[in-house]
C-alpha cells in the first residue's frame, strides 16, 4: 500500500509538473500612455514608420538550485535592456514584430528535483548546488516613427 502510494505520488508529481510557464512584463499599449520611451510590440506599429534595421539579442544566465535565477535569461531583461538599447543606438524609437523564445525553461518537477539534489549535495558535502545554464533569444524590427507615437 505504501509502495503503491509512493509510486502514485511520484507519477502524479511528474505528470503535473510537466509544464513551464515563462512570463514577461507588459509591452507598449495603444494608444501609449505617453509618447516617451521606446515603443515595444509583438504586433506592428500604430502609425507611419521607417524601418531602420533588425536586432537579435540572446540573454543568458544561470538557474541555481532550481529556483534562483542569475543573469539575463528572462524575457524582460533582454527586451527592455539590450533590445531597447540597441534600437536606441540605431536611432530608433520603437521595436516591432518582437519574437522571443525561452530556450530551456524549467518545469516545476525539474525545479523541485534540482532543489532536492542541491540540498542532498550540500548535506553530504559533495559537488555543491545544481546549476543550469539558461538562454533567452529575442528578435525585433527597429523602427523610427514618422511623427508622434499614437
Amino acid at each position, binding site marked *: 500500500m505504501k509502495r503503491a502510494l509512493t509510486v502514485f505520488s511520484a507519477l502524479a508529481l511528474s505528470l503535473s509538473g510537466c*509544464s513551464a*510557464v515563462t512570463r514577461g512584463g*507588459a509591452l507598449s*499599449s495603444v494608444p501609449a500612455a505617453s509618447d516617451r520611451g521606446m515603443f515595444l*510590440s*509583438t504586433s506592428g506599429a500604430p502609425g507611419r514608420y521607417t524601418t531602420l534595421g533588425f536586432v537579435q539579442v540572446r540573454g543568458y544566465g544561470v538557474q541555481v538550485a532550481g529556483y534562483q535565477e542569475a543573469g539575463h535569461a528572462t524575457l524582460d531583461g533582454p527586451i527592455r535592456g539590450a533590445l531597447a538599447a540597441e534600437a536606441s543606438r540605431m536611432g530608433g524609437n520603437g521595436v516591432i514584430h518582437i519574437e522571443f*523564445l525561452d530556450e530551456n525553461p524549467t518545469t516545476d518537477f525539474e525545479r523541485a528535483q534540482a532543489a532536492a539534489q542541491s540540498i542532498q549535495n550540500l548535506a553530504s558535502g559533495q559537488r555543491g548546488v545544481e546549476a543550469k545554464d539558461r538562454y533567452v533569444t529575442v528578435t525585433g524590427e527597429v523602427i523610427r516613427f514618422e511623427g508622434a507615437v499614437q
Partner: protein
Amino acid sequence: MVDSPVPMRPVAASLLLLAGCTASTFTRLPSPDPIRPFVTAEGIPAGSPYDSLGLVQVTRRGVLVFGFADPAGTEVDAALEELELEARKAGADGVVNARVLKQPWTLAERITGAVLFFLPLPSEVTVTGEFVRLRKATAGSVP
C-alpha cells in the same frame, strides 16, 4: 508457390521509411467565444486600441510511451489549453501573435519508439504570445 518478382520486404521497408519522413501537426484554434480568451497568430489590427498585459511562453515537456501514448500532454492542444488558463489568470481578453514550436515525430520514429519501448521518446511543445486586453474604440477611431 511462385516467388514474387518484386522483393517485398525491402519494398515494404522503403515505403514505411518514405511514409515516415514527413510529420505534420494541425490543431484547430477555438472558435471565437465571448467567454473564452481568443488565441490568434495575427497581431492587433493597426489603430485598434489595446493594453498589453505581458508576454507568455508555455512549454510542456514529457515522453511518448510506446511511441504513441502521451501521458504528460505534449501536443499543441494541451499547450493551448494551458495558455488559455494563463490568459484568464492575467485577466486578458486574448493572446495575439501566438507562435507554436513543436517537433513532431515521424511515423517511422514512433514505431521505432514502440518497438524500443524501454527508450521513451522525448516530446515537447512551446507556445508563445502576448496577452492583450482590448479597449473599446472611441467614436471616430478605427475599430
